[in-house]
């Protein structure tokens, strides 16, 4: 069996994905401008537990070209709907507790639009960008996280030995 894709694909765009640590300031700097002084941002940081189990490590994989295309769609949608500039970046590969997994920064002239667009982008990203998370637990088991079915993957014994 081939190993799942945890690396970025050769030749595909890498605007919205990275394997390197995310620095929020690079995103806020990219969107801020003299006429856009209100900057709302969001960070998703790797937590140490999931459904009550201790997470030791995790790996994000992605469908790289589609993740880029859909991220671009979402940024464009937000910039059409509100007068804002959007930056978003999702990290893939092996992450540890406390690492930033995703960052969104949105700058506009007013707070309202910056906050609304930032919230829009993170919600759409979670719902549409093809990224998956495989967690390793303290007891050595591994499983693919399914946010649509909290706890269900454990009851269904989807946990696989590594």
């Amino acid at each position, binding site marked *: *069996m081939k190993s*799942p*894709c945890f690396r970025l694909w050769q030749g595909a765009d890498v605007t919205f994905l990275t394997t390197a640590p995310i620095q929020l300031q690079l995103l806020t700097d990219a969107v801020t401008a003299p006429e856009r002084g209100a900057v709302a941002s969001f960070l998703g940081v790797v937590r140490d537990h999931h459904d009550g189990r201790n997470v030791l490590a995790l790996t994000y994989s*992605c*469908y790289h070209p589609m*993740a880029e295309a*859909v991220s671009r769609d979402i940024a464009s949608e937000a910039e059409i709907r509100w007068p804002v500039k959007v930056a978003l970046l999702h990290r893939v590969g092996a992450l540890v507790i406390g690492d930033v997994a995703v960052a969104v920064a949105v700058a506009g002239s007013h707070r309202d639009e910056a906050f609304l667009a930032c919230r829009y982008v993170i919600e759409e990203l979670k719902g549409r960008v*093809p990224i998956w998370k495989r967690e390793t637990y303290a007891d050595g088991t591994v499983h*693919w996280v*399914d946010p649509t079915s909290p706890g269900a993957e454990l009851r269904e014994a989807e946990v696989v030995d590594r």
Partner: protein
Amino acid sequence: MPPPGSKPPTIRVLLFARYAELLGTEQLDLPATGVETAGQVLEWVRALPGGARIADGALVAVNLRHASRSAPVAAGDEVALLPPLAGG
């Protein structure tokens, strides 16, 4: 159109995350003849060994965008079956 003598026209099928593990592969080539919708691609994969555990509600993408079961597909298209997304 492929040049004469090349392989028969196919639809590229990509599998990710748990679905790739269930099928033991990340990529399949489905002969395109008679395949008209994304839903038919999903049913074909679900009929393969290991495919039955792919949920009926799997997400489907055609050429890098989310698509409905009824989305048309043809030779040369890239169809992906996506487990529940977990980004963010």
